[in-house]
Each structure stands twice: as structure tokens, then as C-alpha cells.
């Protein structure tokens, strides 16, 4: 799975309240949520995002509330992949579950300038900054995570595999390989 796009850079500790505030949690329409995504940082933040753009963040990205609306909003805004120094544990699961790749990269914020074009190769565990022509490695995602992403998210993944096998026997066969 390869993603190309220009990057947008965010701070440390971006919480899910900041990504999509509580007052919008009675809405589930992706385009509505995208419209209000990260508006506490910049009104109309999502307007500048082109489809396929990539988010770079500092540590603890997506900490706080378990609201999956945060992932829905980022995805609908056009974000194709998130690279952060670390992720909030629940956000990480949500992101994978909705088919939005989340990759941990050390010192992510130092390695890119805003609007640099980058190419992320999930299977190879490589990200290339096309502007600086530098390549960085990251530990490849566990195979279960890659398979969920390839299926487009957890629920399509469950649909593809035999639900009765999910996830124990499936995991064992994947992990033993």
C-alpha cells in the first residue's frame, strides 16, 4: 500500500476534542464532520486539504475521547495517512478500524516541512520525503493491521474472513508466519 501526498504538520498532544469538538458528536455525516475538523486550530482547516494529503503530528496524537468521529472527520477531509511520533491507544485502533493508516515515526515533525511531497510505503516500512530526497524507515505494521487496512477497515475485514474464525484462528495463522 503506497500513499503519496503533501504533508500538513501538527503539534504534540492533539486530542480528539480538538479534532472534532463534543458539540458535533450528534452528527455522523462525514462531510459535515470534515467541515469542522480541527477548526479550533484554524477555521476551515479542511478547506486547504487535498484528497490524499498526509498528516504529520507529534507525540500522543488523538489522545483523549474515544470518539470515532475524529477519524471519520480526518478521512472525509481527504487525509490518506497519518504519521506521528506516537498515537493515543484508542485513536490508533479507530484509525486502523476505519482503514486510515496510522504510522509511528520517530521525530516525525523534524523530518518534514509543511507541504513537502512524501511517499509512504506501508508494507516496506519506508517513507520518502520527495522534497529533501531523504528516506526514513519505520517498523512495519503487524500483519493483522495491514490486512485490516487492505480490506478497507475492520468491518469489511470481518466480512471477508469467516466471522467464526475471527479473530483467533486467523490471528494465529497470520502471526505464526
Amino acid at each position, binding site marked *: 500500500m503506497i500513499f503519496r501526498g503533501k504533508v500538513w504538520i501538527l503539534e504534540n498532544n492533539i486530542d480528539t*476534542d480538538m479534532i472534532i469538538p463534543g458539540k458535533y458528536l450528534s452528527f455522523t455525516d462525514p462531510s459535515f464532520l470534515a467541515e469542522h475538523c480541527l477548526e*479550533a486550530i484554524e477555521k476551515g482547516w479542511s478547506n486547504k486539504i487535498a484528497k490524499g494529503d498526509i498528516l504529520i503530528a507529534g507525540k500522543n496524537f488523538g489522545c483523549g475521547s474515544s470518539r470515532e468521529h475524529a477519524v471519520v472527520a480526518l478521512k472525509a477531509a481527504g487525509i490518506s495517512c497519518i504519521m506521528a511520533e506516537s498515537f493515543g491507544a484508542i485513536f490508533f485502533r479507530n484509525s486502523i478500524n476505519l482503514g486510515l493508516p496510522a504510522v509511528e515515526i520517530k521525530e516525525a515533525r523534524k523530518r518534514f516541512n509543511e507541504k513537502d511531497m512524501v511517499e509512504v510505503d506501508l508494507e516496506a516500512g519506508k517513507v520518502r520525503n520527495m522534497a529533501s530526497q531523504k528516506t526514513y524507515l519505520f517498523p512495519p505494521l503487524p500483519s493483522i493491521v495491514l490486512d485490516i487496512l487492505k480490506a478497507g477497515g475492520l468491518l469489511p475485514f*470481518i466480512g471477508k474472513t469467516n*466471522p467464526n474464525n475471527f479473530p483467533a484462528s486467523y490471528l494465529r495463522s497470520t502471526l505464526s508466519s
Partner: protein
Amino acid sequence: MGMTISQKILAAHANLQSVKSGDIISVKLDTILGNDISAFMALEELEKIGRPPLQAARNIILVLDHFTPNKDIGTAEQCRVLREFAEGAGIEHYFEGGRSGIEHALLPEAGLVVPGDLIVGGDSHTCTYGALGAFAMGVGSTDLAAAMVLGKTWLKVPETIRINYYGILGEWVGGKDLILYTIGKIGTDGALGKTIEFYGPTVKSLDVEDRLTMANMAVEAGAVNGIMEPDPVIQNFLADRSRRKGIYFTSDYDANYEQELNIDVFSITPQVALPPSPGNAVSVQEASGIKINQVFIGSCTNGRIGDLRVAAKILKGRKADSRIRLLISPATPGIYRQAMEEGLLKIFSEADAVILPPSCGVCFGGHLGILAKGEVCLSTTNRNFKGRMGHPDSKVYLTSPAVAAASAVRGKITQPSSLT
């Protein structure tokens, strides 16, 4: 190699002899919890894949507590969808209206959580149940949907940080101060992706409510779950609440901890977390004098009867400063009734407090008590992120019910000891 409480619970639910940190396992769930926000989205997700049959309907608990009492037409419609779903699917544990309260206060009160349980909940503060010796973690709506269908989930066994608390607590110091102090010390990513095991003689000396308050905020340090060794205090608490006995796991002496910390509680004073992070803990002295517009006492962190008793002790015969709004919300109908019987509501009303229904609304800026631009709230909740309780340029300071009540009287952040 021995195992921790968390590892033992996970192994038991994975049908394995043992597990270790880093193992990816599939686990059977005892309880799958959803609320009017997370479960609504989960149902929408299930709709997209053709509503597969639920293999775990018996284990599902639905609590309508976030935008309730229904805030507007949109939220009322969402609640209606959930109500119809619960009826259709035969969900026994469905809570709405005057039987509902804030989920993480309601479940322990109703005896629906016992030691040794494995719980996922569509709410980040699901980690609260760790105080009862359960492994409980927050998840999003897709994980919730999958768990509802399969009765299982998968996870990576977390590393554990053990925090050993020792020493005697000072005056007006309780569970909230300990957890704010702890997050201040280790940071909001100090336990990222890990388990926090709250341990030691001070924890053993705490009542169930203070323990729940501490475990509640484990997620604020980034933890997957927080857990405490269940003991006779828990056994007594559950004795007349639950038909299920539970399994009282303890950590082995040779269990593996990624990190062990010792905290001497003797020097801990009442704490305040400055905006915009629960990790910004300072002693109340350092924050005293900060002007506030609103005080909120309630939530899954501090809306229990003990919290209301502390507030009432300070507010009795006094009034909230005329420049501030004091909001108090008992976390469940049971707590509400208890507060009524003990005369606490009268004390609050006479102190010019607004007594709110049990609801998550205030804490997450959903409805009830929203802040205007530039306003400041001192709150007994768990998060003070930018704009959490209203306008992006409003501010939230976190604290205990004692500091909140004393500050309501003075109209500024105040040490409780200065009033008594």
C-alpha cells in the same frame, strides 16, 4: 515468569495458560458497553454490512447518558434508534430516562461489573472499572460494533507500569488529587498504550469511590487500562449488588513490570490541573486566586455520593459567590436519591447551586452549562482540553470536589482549608 492481574484476566479470556506483554490475542468479552454517541455510530456501521446477527446480545449494556435528557431533535432521534434497537435485539441492560445515569457510575452501582471481568466500552473512561479489579478498556464505535457481533475482540497485551502509593493522605486530599498528581508526574503519554497498576497501602486505604476516581483517569496518562487488586473493600461493596461472584486475581510476586514508581502521598496537597492538559497539575496554592465564572461538581470522575458529601460539608450555610454559576450533577438517580435523603440537595439549593440531572453533557461540552468565549470553569471532571466545555477560547481547570466547593464560595480558586 509470573503474571500481573491484567495478564491473568486476559489469559483467562483468551483461553490460554499464560500471556506476556506484546502478545496479540483474541479475547472473549464479559461486557460490551455503549452509549448514545458510540453505540449509535456502531449501529450505523453495522447497517453498512447488513446488520449481522449479534452473538453477544446478552453481554451488551446500553446507557443513554451523553446528550440526555435529549438535547435536541437530532439527539432525540439517535436515542429513538437505540431504544428500538434494544427492544428488537432483546438487550436486557438498557438504561434511559430516570433509570439511567452516567455509565461509569451506574455500572458499579448496579453491580454489573465484578473482579476478573473483561470489558470493552465505547467510551474512553471505561477504564474506571479497573478499580474493581476488572480489565476494562475504551474503544471506538467500530470496535464496539465488531464486539457486539462477535462477543470478542483482539488486542496486544500491554506492558504494565506499577505505581506504589504509600503514606497517609493530608486533609482535603483524596483520589482525585492522587491521580492528578500522578498524571502531572508521568505526563499525558507517560503510560501510553500500557496498563497502570495502582498499588500500595494508600490505595488499599481508599474507599471504592476514590479508587474509581483514580482508575477513571488512567486514560488521561495514555493508559489502555488502569487496574487495582480487588480486596475485601470491593467484596463488601459488591456483596449486596451483584449476583456474580467474580474472580479476585492478584499479581504474582515475580510478575514483569516495565516500570515501577513509588509515590509518597504525605506531601501531596489538593491539586489543580491547569488548562489545556490534565497533565498540568499544580498544588492549589499555586493556582489560588484565579478567577472563575463557573464551577461544576459531577461526572464519572467525581459525581458520586462521597463527592457530594464533601461538597455539602463545605457549602453548608454558605452561598456560591454571586459572580459565579455553581452546577452540581449527581451521577446517577441512585446518588440523586441518596443526596436528597441526606439533605445534600437542600444544602446545594440554598447555596444557589443549579442541580442538574445525571448526564455527561457538561463535561464534554455537549449540552448543559456550556462556556462562553473567555469564560473559566473549575471542574471536577477529567479533561481540560482546549474548548472542552464550550467556546474554543474558554478554559477549564480540573480539581477535586473539595477545592471546587470552596472556590465556588469565594468566586476564585481557593484552598478548602482556608474556609474551615
